[in-house]
């Protein structure tokens, strides 16, 4: 300013600095963290405004969809991604699974005292890149700092809003007996990629997380057919749990064909070694679609034409079943129930 002494402020030490309690106290250190780290990465008009919330334009006449997810992955960096891009993809996908075009994201960071600012910057950069690639800006945010031992590096809760065009009615309760069950690609990649970096398990693999934003794929599918009833991303709990959720919501049963479900060989091998079942392992860039049987080919064609749906397949059929069992014809020739996940899926010895 006119007549001011040169306005020098020591910048954040992004190389060796750590998050300390002052960064969360709301004073000048908080402002500096937001400005030099978050704003620098996400840079957009809404954030730069610096208000308590973001003021947004919304196309009128459409239904709005809102979705939220907390992201608490450990380790924070894993093959193929990190908690940053995951937190963008996860919420965008939940919007897409409601048939909505994602428009805006809000991000709430809970940082643990002592977390290296360099790691935070990497995570935020990854998040910003994911947000830009998806065309969904982070328009408002919040940062809190908790004491060492009361957090785990970084937790990111993202919330998204989007709009569902009139005529789109996608919901978990829409599966009908006879409908086809489609899957966009291989299962278990994300979970295995993350497990491979857990200290107690560590194994070498070239598997990378499938983390991706699926709204483009969904848009192509919805364009190809108006007869898609259900969309869902099989994240925590894996494909098995997601299908059981849908069966419960729609009050139907399902019969799957094990032979149709694509699993990468390394995922298969890791599951054998650890005593896991790929059906229960998390995915972050896959979706399940349930559509009218005679629309299945159109939808599959649209999926396969999209880079994130190249390996899309039909994996089964919705059935009438008062017990809402998800069953599976095994590759071996038998049939079994594919149940909900019980508790956590833990590596087993027997």
């Amino acid at each position, binding site marked *: 300013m006119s007549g001011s002494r040169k306005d020098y402020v020591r910048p954040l030490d992004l190389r060796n600095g750590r998050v300390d309690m002052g960064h969360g106290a709301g004073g000048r250190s908080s402002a500096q963290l937001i400005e030099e780290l978050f704003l620098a990465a996400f840079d957009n008009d809404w954030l730069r405004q610096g208000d308590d919330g973001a003021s947004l334009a919304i196309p009128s006449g459409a239904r709005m969809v809102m979705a939220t997810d907390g992201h608490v992955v450990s380790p924070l960096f894993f093959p193929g991604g990190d908690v940053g891009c995951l937190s963008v993809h996860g919420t965008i996908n939940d919007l897409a699974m409601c048939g909505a075009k994602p428009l805006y994201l809000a991000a709430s960071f809970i940082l643990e005292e002592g977390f290296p600012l360099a790691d935070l910057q990497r995570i935020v950069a990854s998040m910003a890149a994911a947000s830009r690639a998806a065309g969904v800006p982070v328009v408002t945010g919040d940062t809190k700092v908790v004491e060492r031992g009361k957090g785990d590096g970084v937790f990111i809760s993202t919330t998204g809003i989007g709009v569902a065009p009139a005529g789109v009615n996608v919901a978990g309760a829409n599966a009908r007996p006879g409908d086809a069950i489609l899957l966009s690609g291989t299962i278990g990649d994300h979970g295995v990629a993350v497990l491979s970096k857990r200290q*107690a*398990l560590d194994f070498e693999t070239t598997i990378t997380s499938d983390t991706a934003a699926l709204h483009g794929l969904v848009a192509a599918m919805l364009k190809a057919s108006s007869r898609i009833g259900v969309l869902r991303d099989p994240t925590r709990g894996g494909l098995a749990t997601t299908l059981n959720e849908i069966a*419960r919501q729609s009050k139907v049963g399902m019969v799957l064909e094990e032979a149709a479900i694509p699993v990468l*060989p390394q995922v*298969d*091998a890791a599951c*054998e070694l*650890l*005593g896991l079942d790929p059906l229960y392992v998390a995915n972050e860039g896959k979706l399940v679609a349930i559509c009218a049987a005679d629309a299945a080919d159109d939808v599959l064609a649209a999926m396969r034409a999209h880079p994130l749906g190249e390996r899309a397949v039909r994996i089964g059929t919705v059935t009438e079943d*008062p*017990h*809402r*069992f998800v*069953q599976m*014809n*095994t*590759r*071996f*020739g*038998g*049939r*079994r*129930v594919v*149940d*909900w996940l*019980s*508790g*956590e899926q*833990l*590596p*087993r*010895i*027997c």
Partner: protein
Amino acid sequence: MKFIDEFRDGGLARKIADRIASEVLPERLYSFMEFCGGHTHAISRYGIGELLPANLRMVHGPGCPVCVLPIGRVDLAIELALAQDAIVCTYGDTMRVPASNGLSMVRAKARGGDIRMVYSCADALEIARREPGREVVFFAIGFETTTPPTALALQKARAEGLRNFSVLCCHVLTPSAITHILESPEVRQFGTVPIDGFVGPAHVSIVIGSGPYEHFAQEYRKPVVIAGFEPLDVMQAVLMLVRQVNEGRAEVENEFTRAVDRDGNLHAQALVSEVFELRPSFEWRGLGEVPYSALKIRPGFAEFDAERRFGLDYRPVPDNKACECGAILRGVKKPTDCKIFGTVCTPENPVGSCMVSSEGACAAHYAYGRFKDIPVHAEVTR
């Protein structure tokens, strides 16, 4: 995956199934017990039951170290974590086994116990090295397969002079359990056990060899076929049992020759007997006290024996009265014969041993087979 995928071939399965169908005598009932949870798992996961003739029935045995782990032993592990503030290391399998007072390892952890899941006992040893200021106890469960790695860890601990490492030894023995099923006093209570033959352990036999079953086959006149855990192995073993029964033989046959011979892994056996000795008696969940059915740590390794180190006092805890596990484990009843199967007793809240691990007879039936039992269904809503 070599030596795996070939043994899961559905086409071959069909052929063996047809062969079994053609060889069973239509007028006869065949009951075979697969002792091992590994076989139970294969039968459930691949739907083998559907491929077997109607007059051939597979009975799930007690061969899952988690299922047979008695409540009182889990209580000890929890006591170490909660009352003694030890780091208790355990395989993932034991985490949800119900203990007393509504607890389990998972819930004890939630109450502040420092309970850590390990993939190998070597990891527990490593934790002890890294945290010399804390007591680290490895909660050792498992059959003859899992015992040699524990023995190795104990040897290393002694060699390194680790002062904060010990083992809560719950290792159990397969042959004595099989024998017990046929001769225990409880057999009277359930009537004659209608088992015509046994599918013998796969991986246990890698370590102990096929020899130890010979006495049993002769003594009790029951055929035994040692079989791998892949579905074709199981089907082939069933075929081999059908043939023994049809031909009136009671021999130990080995389907799993690619990994098992008569002697087993002598190196591992020597190591085990250096570190462990027989326990006069040990409680098996669902079976009760079984004589000479488990191992304890030899006096030479006393300082690494958590039971001695912490002066632990074993207290048996009775199972739920409604639970039919005892009868199920002996092949006298089926999971669906239990009044509380699938309602009060579910994988989320297991009541009896057979529901505890996914290898347990009830859990396997719940997870994989219950679509055949229409009245049961799985809902969260009340």
